[in-house]
């Protein structure tokens, strides 16, 4: 009996200490991690999507709640008009887990101006090529975000995805979540974007 109690106590104390240590490290590094992600993950994707913007999209940004989490929207000014936003959405349906996608949308025309994969857990050299192969992201440019069923295939485009085993349909399905978020949040985005005009 004593041994049983000792086992329970030791495991409980060790698990509690471990949890406490991880919580402390996590809260101590969260700001630095966010800044690193902005610099190394979101930054290049934002600059790629909003290339040619006359402002600095990384500093011109606002936050909105997407479901239960907060998302940052980066504003791009073209011809002195702030009508483009880029934001990172999370697509569900990747083979290795969630897929982080930066989506740029012209909120006046409701068209996608660019897509870039930021984070994923797909197989290196196979599904992961979606991040590096420009053919993959190019197929979404110009598609409307207002139609729930939008996809390159529905728009009559070929889907030149680089490699099996992640078929284009699976990636398109994963990317549809950010489209849906943009549609739902459009009134709030239009309201927030006024501050940058």
């Amino acid at each position: 009996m004593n041994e049983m109690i000792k086992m329970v106590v030791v495991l409980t104390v060790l698990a509690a200490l471990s949890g406490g240590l991880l919580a402390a490290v996590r809260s101590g590094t969260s700001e630095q991690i966010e800044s690193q992600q902005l610099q190394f993950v979101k930054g290049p994707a934002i600059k790629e999507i909003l290339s040619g913007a006359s402002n600095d999209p990384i500093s011109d940004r606002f936050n909105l709640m997407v479901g239960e989490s907060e998302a940052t929207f980066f504003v791009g000014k073209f011809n002195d008009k702030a009508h483009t936003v880029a934001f990172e959405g999370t697509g569900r349906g990747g083979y290795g887990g969630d897929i982080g996608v930066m989506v740029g949308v012209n909120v006046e025309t409701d068209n996608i101006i660019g897509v870039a994969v930021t984070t994923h857990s797909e197989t290196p050299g196979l599904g992961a090529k979606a991040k590096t192969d420009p053919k993959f992201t190019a197929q979404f440019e110009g598609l409307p975000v207002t139609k729930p069923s939008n996809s390159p295939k529905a728009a009559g485009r070929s889907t030149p995805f680089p490699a099996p085993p992640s078929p284009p349909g699976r990636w398109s399905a994963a990317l549809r979540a950010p489209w849906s978020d943009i549609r739902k949040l459009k009134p709030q985005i239009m309201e927030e974007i006024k501050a940058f005009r």
Partner: protein
Amino acid sequence: MAKTLVQEFSKGLWKELPPFRLVLGLCPVLGVTTTMENGIGMGLATTFVLVCANILVSLLRNVIPQKVRIACFIIVIASFVIVVELLMQAYAYPLFSESWVFLFP
């Protein structure tokens, strides 16, 4: 025959080198060490986890009951692995993005 201190500390250099002689952790080693920076980074991360986990396990070995020994070791080692993951994300993001898929699956 009892091993000398020098033998004990030098055996990992070749005689019991984990990836190539014991074939342990071969996949992450081959996957991550594609550049010198990644190799050094992985070596430092592995050393940190091994040293910290060994010190803590040595300190706790008389307290941990025999039957939950493995479970306790898993908690200790996994905690240090996650600490390294968070620190790499915070202070060495390029290294983290190159190696996380192999080191922190």
